[in-house]
């Protein structure tokens, strides 16, 4: 019974390392985090494998952390930050603390339904990829409620990033990515970008290290109350594309 799986996960702390770790970065998400945790907990528990949930809080100033801890979930833990450092820093902290063989990070607004994890797991477990990334650009994906401004900005930035960083990935920014543990350790240990564009750096590094990247079409919803400001984030993204390029030329990634 799927609900019984959830109850067991809720009540009994794992006595061994998990197979799957799910990391959710969050910042001031008091109104959104519990439904997201619920959706994740119900589905991943239903997979029947041992798993853990890590909330990488990015210095929330509201009662997000209190609400999460009050839920009393035995296999959930919060990895806090002393102050707001950026999404990239939060994801890195969560991923480096994770103990699973397969490590997923997923956005706090559940914009990609957790059910899409199954496809990413198949790409890694059966397809042999080092990382599988959710994609809103790959054939078969489904992006709903996405604004025209966001659509145009995303396409332009994607083309620029592909050109400058020589990545073959169509959608670098979807907040739904699965890594094998060895791949996660190698990539996140070298990540230097703490902000929104950290995904781009990870994919640049993965390409540089010769890792196998599977781009998997997923459903994606532009969730209500999104904190992404398209124009502001586009400027940051552009800056970070050049920063990564420069880092590469300066030898910052020499050991990668």
């Amino acid at each position, binding site marked *: 019974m799927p609900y019984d799986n*959830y109850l067991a996960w809720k009540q009994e702390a794992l006595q061994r390392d998990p197979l799957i770790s799910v990391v959710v970065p969050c910042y001031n998400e008091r109104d959104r985090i519990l*439904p997201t945790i619920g*959706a994740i907990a*119900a589905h991943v528990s239903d997979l029947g494998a041992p798993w853990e949930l890590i909330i990488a809080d990015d210095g929330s100033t509201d009662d997000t952390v209190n609400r999460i801890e009050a839920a009393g979930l035995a296999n959930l833990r919060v990895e806090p930050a002393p102050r707001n450092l950026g999404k990239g820093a939060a994801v890195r902290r969560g991923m480096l603390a994770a103990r699973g063989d397969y490590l997923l990070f997923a956005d706090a607004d*559940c914009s990609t339904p957790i059910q899409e994890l199954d496809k990413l797991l198949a790409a890694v477990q059966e397809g042999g990829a080092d990382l599988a990334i959710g994609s809103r650009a790959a054939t078969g994906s489904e992006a709903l409620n996405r604004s025209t401004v966001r659509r145009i900005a995303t396409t332009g930035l994607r083309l620029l990033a592909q050109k400058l960083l020589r990545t073959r990935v169509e959608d670098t920014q979807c907040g739904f990515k699965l890594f094998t543990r060895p791949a996660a350790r190698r990539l996140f240990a070298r990540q230097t970008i703490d902000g929104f564009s950290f995904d781009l750096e990870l994919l640049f590094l993965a390409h540089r290290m010769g890792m196998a990247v599977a781009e998997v079409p997923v459903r994606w919803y532009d969730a209500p109350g999104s904190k992404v400001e398209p124009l502001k984030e586009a400027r940051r993204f552009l800056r970070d594309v050049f920063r990564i390029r420069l880092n590469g030329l300066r030898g910052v990634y020499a050991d990668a």
Partner: protein
Amino acid sequence: MHITAARREDVLVLQPQGRFDAHAVPEFRALLASNRRQERDEVAVDLNGVEFVDEQALAALVDARTSLRATDGDLVLASPSDSVRVILELTGRSNDFALVPSREGAAGAARSLLAVA
């Protein structure tokens, strides 16, 4: 999000699918307003096909139930998916609604529950 509305055994059954969030709340409210009776109406929201529900959608369900009760009607949730069930539990909303476990005969079960209430 697409929500269907149908009347079964005199109970108005609203059936959202997929993601039931703030984007879908206006559609839910409009469907309810255009299909409900002004007095003593009984409504079941079938959540079997819903994989995610956010706080705004939950608040809309609470508002709908309050409004129906004010006119001697009521609202129950029918056959919630496991995701919805867990979300209701974590958000502390489980006790705000009567839950009808089975999708089959949801309207009849809803009628029984509503009659008791």
